Each structure stands twice: as structure tokens, then as C-alpha cells.
């Protein structure tokens, strides 16, 4: 019951992440094109590179959890056919847990950078977009990926899910 509710919540968070990524991609696309068109008329878009750079943060980290849900993160399945189903299940759980640990570490490191970014007033070069909120977003998006991986591991342990076939 708890796992199903958590699974529903995680799915909504992943949908939100990928939506942020898609919006980031559209922002990058629109800004880049506006800059090119403006430049053709002698009026390039001021700070376009700043906007595109920060949109990239959402494009890259917005898709992490979605890629995990689709089983798209690249793994080598060379020996999968030679392992027993039980061993495959154990290895899949181990992969999810190690992945969750790495993403939690990434989330923690970005979170620790937030204070530093605030203290040093770190921002983009032209528009002075502060770096701290973007680091917080990266931290949150990484944490969602870690949550999704942990949940998948728990679902496998408690028999709620079959191990997925890796790419």
C-alpha cells in the first residue's frame, strides 16, 4: 500500500521533471532562434547565452529520472541470459541501489554548492541570473531520480515488479 502510494507520487514527480526538461528545451530553442534572427537584423538578443546555459540545467537533469523509468540508462546485458532469474533480480536491485546512492551523492553535492554560490554571489555574466536556484533545481531533480531508483529496488525486493530488460 505504502509502496503503491509512493510509486504514484514518484511517477508524478518524474512527469514534472520531464515537463521542466521539455520547457527548458523549448526555452533554449526559442532563445537561440530569437538571437539568430535578431543578429541578422543587427540586434542580437542580449543575454541569450545566459538563458540557454541555465535552460540546459533543466534539459539535462530533467530527463534523468524519466530515462531511468524507461530503462534507458545504458548497461551491458552480455551475461544477463546466462544468469538465473534470481541472480538477475539481485543484480538489478544492486544496480538500482548503487544508482540511487550516486544520485543522492550528486544531489547532496549540488545542495552544498548552493551556500557557496550565495556567499560568492555567483551568477551568469550578462543577465546576472543567480546560480543558487539552478543548483537547487539540479539537486531536487537528482533526488527525484534517486527516489525513483530506490523505489524500483524496493518493489523488486518485495516482489511488486519484474526486473526490466536492460538496453
Amino acid at each position, binding site marked *: 500500500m505504502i509502496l503503491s502510494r509512493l510509486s504514484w507520487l514518484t511517477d508524478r514527480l518524474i512527469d514534472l521533471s*520531464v515537463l521542466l*526538461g*521539455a520547457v*527548458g*528545451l*523549448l526555452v*533554449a*530553442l*526559442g*532563445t*537561440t*532562434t530569437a*538571437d*539568430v534572427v535578431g543578429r541578422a537584423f543587427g540586434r542580437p538578443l542580449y543575454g541569450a*547565452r545566459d538563458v*540557454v*546555459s*541555465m*535552460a*540546459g*540545467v533543466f*534539459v*539535462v*537533469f*530533467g*530527463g*534523468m529520472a*524519466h*530515462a531511468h523509468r*524507461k530503462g*534507458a*540508462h*545504458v*548497461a*551491458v*546485458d*552480455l*551475461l*544477463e541470459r546466462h544468469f538465473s532469474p534470481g541472480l*538477475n533480480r539481485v*543484480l*538489478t536491485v*544492486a*544496480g538500482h541501489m*548503487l*544508482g540511487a546512492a*550516486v544520485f543522492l*551523492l*550528486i544531489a547532496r*553535492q*549540488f545542495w*552544498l*554548492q548552493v551556500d557557496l554560490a550565495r556567499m560568492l554571489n555567483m551568477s551568469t555574466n550578462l543577465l546576472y541570473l543567480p*546560480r543558487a536556484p*539552478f*543548483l537547487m533545481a*539540479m539537486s531536487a531533480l537528482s533526488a527525484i531520480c534517486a527516489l525513483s531508483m530506490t523505489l524500483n529496488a524496493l518493489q523488486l525486493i518485495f516482489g511488486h515488479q519484474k526486473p526490466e530488460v*536492460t*538496453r
Partner: protein
Amino acid sequence: MSPETVGFIGIGILLVLLAIRIPVAIAMFLVGLGGIAYLRNETAALSYLANDGFSLASSADLLVIPLFILMGNVATESGMSRKLYDAAYAWIGSWRGGLASATVVGSGGFAALSGSSVASALTMGRVSLGEMQRFGYSPRLSTGAVAAGGTLGILIPPSTGFVLYAILTQESIGRLFLAGVLPGLLLVVLFIATIMVMSTINPALGPSGPRTSWSDKGRATLGSLPLIGLVVLTIGGIYGGLFSPTEAAGVGALMAILYGLVTRTLSFTGLSKALSDSVSTTAVVMLILIAAHVFGPFLAFSRVPTLVGEFLTGLKVGVYGVLILILACYLILGCFLEGYAMLVLTMPIFFPVITSLGFDPIWFGVLAVVMLEMGLITPPVGMNVFIVKSVAPSVPLSDIFRGVAPFLLSMVVLVALLILFPQIALILPNTMLGVR
């Protein structure tokens, strides 16, 4: 323990983690972080994670990857790629093995829109396999042509493989894109020649398709013009100095979306699928790249690349002997590793050797990407073969692997030609951007 010993133990652990299906990027993070923490300290390891993670994710230049992937995904969703295949079909479909050749030409054209081989194989597989089955093509030839044609996606620019190589080696993306044009076209010709030879020796493999009238040819060509226009706009814009690669990708993606919306061939659902697929694919590629920026410094601290370099240059086989050894390593690794992972894992080791031997890094980039392409269709881990299998489930995997064998031979011929005549890769960048 000496740093070199730690380095080799780290590589051993990485291979074990990969063998037990730990995702490539996660394995590289674990070994890289652990190795740097051991050889330096924990703070140094974690600083690579935070600093490189942010700088790579917020790199405006790297947005070229999702934007070109988006352009390819939109072209697929709006049916533009189908029209390109139809045009190639109208012109060369009546040749012996013509439908397979049309698939290769369609793949080459689609490759000029999308930097992804997997997208290329999937799109062309859906479009052409049914048609070839209808005309009695041998499943080996048809699936082999789709799987091999799909590999053109990472050789013909824009190419995600070249972008990754450029980031890893600090080379120019524009120069690499230019260097990929002629080898890409040459490979299209070699693939078509392979199909023609096979169909001539055994006509049952690829019977001639129906003849089309001149008006049909004209109509099909007209239908493919938007896609050709998009390729000319984006790639021509880069080479003409109008756009940077990222700008070209942005303009191209927007044009593809507008075309789809205006002609009502792109639905809102199709657009949102193209966007979410692009974001997801970008995350996969970028996670490997960020992991490579943690794993690379570990290798450098361990001095393994220096040791391997000294070993290779110390062999009495001459510079080309070393090059062939490196290419052989790629061929073997390509059988087991995913292409991008292979590139990021090996570049810190092989690139210093290549430059110290006096080889041109742009030329080597083209060779490395061709080797990466071969890895996409070599057994047992041939990503494109698995993609084709998902589109043609009735064809046994072993038949598809047999089908790609003649195309692998064409790729070996291309590698040999590139080694014998480096100008095939270098003439365009050197002519248009000047000799370095």
C-alpha cells in the same frame, strides 16, 4: 600501492561492475570517485562531481545534442523521414536491391537531421522493412541494410559521437562535422555497392522494385524538399559561417516544428513525445559524459594512460602498427560496450598516444567514430541490431547479425581508405576552415 596499480585495479573493478549490469555511468562514477578519493582525497573527488556536473549541464555549446535530437524526433513524428525514403524509393527502387539501397540513402538523409544512430535505425526500420518484405527481399539483406544504414547517424553530421569526441579532446565541433561529410557519403556509396554486388550474385536476395513514372519521381522528390531544405539550412548554415552548431540545431528544430504544425502532420501529442524523448536521450548521453569527467581524472592521477602510451610507443611496430592496434582494441571493445561509453572510457588513454605519434586529431576522430559505428552492429552487443529486431520480431537475431556482415566489410574498407588517404576526412575542414 603505486598509482598505476590502483589504476589497473580500478579498471578491473569497472569491468566487473559492467559485467554485472551496473549502468555504465554509475559504474564510472563509483570507480572514479573511489579512485580519486584513494589517490588524492575525498574532497577532491566530490569537487569533480559538483563542479563538472554543473559546468557540463550549463554548457550552451552542449545544447547542440538535445536540439539536434529534437529535430530528428520531430522529423520522425511529422513523417518527413518517410518522405525522404519515398523519394529515394522512386529514383532507385527499381534497381536490383534498389529498396535496400533506398533505405541506405534514406538513412543517410535522416542522419543529416539527427545525430542518433538508434533513431535512424528505428525510423528507417519502421518505414522500409514492410516494403522490402512485400517485394520478397531476403530478411537478411533487408534487416542488414536497415541496421547498417542506421549507423550513418553518427558519422554524417550533425553527430552526437563527434560532439562527445570534441568535448573529450577539446577539438572543434564544426571542424569534426566537416570532416565527417565525405567519409559519410563514401560509406553510403560503399553500402549501396555492397547491396548491388550481393543482389547481382544472388538476385533472389533483393529483387527489383516497381518502375515509377517521371511524374511519380517528381512528386516524391517534391515531398522530400522540406527535409532537404532543413538539412541545407542547418548544415549549410554551419559551414557558411551563419550559425554556430548550437544555433543551427535550434533554428533547424524550430523549423521542423513549424513545418509539422503548419502542414498539420505534427500533433500536440507527437510534439510532446518528441520533446520528452529528446530530454530523456539527452540525460542518458550527458550522464555518461559527466561520469567520464570524474573517471578521466582518476585515470590521469593513476598514470595508466602514460603507461599504456609508453607501452604502445615502445612496441617495434611503427606508428601505423600502433594505430592498427588501437583500432583493433576499438573493434573488440565495440563487441561488448555501448558506443558512447567506449568513446569516453578509451579517449583519456588513446588520445594522448595518437597526438604524440603525430596523427591529426580530427582525422582520428573520424576513425574513432567509424569504429564506434562498427560497434553498433557487431555481435553480441550490437545496439542497432537489437533495434531492428524490435521492428522485425520474426527475423532471428542470428540472421540479422549475418545480414550486417557484408556491411561490416564495407566499413573495414572505409577505415582502410581513411588510413591510406587521410584527405578524405581532412580536405573539407582544411579547405573551408584553413589548415591548422
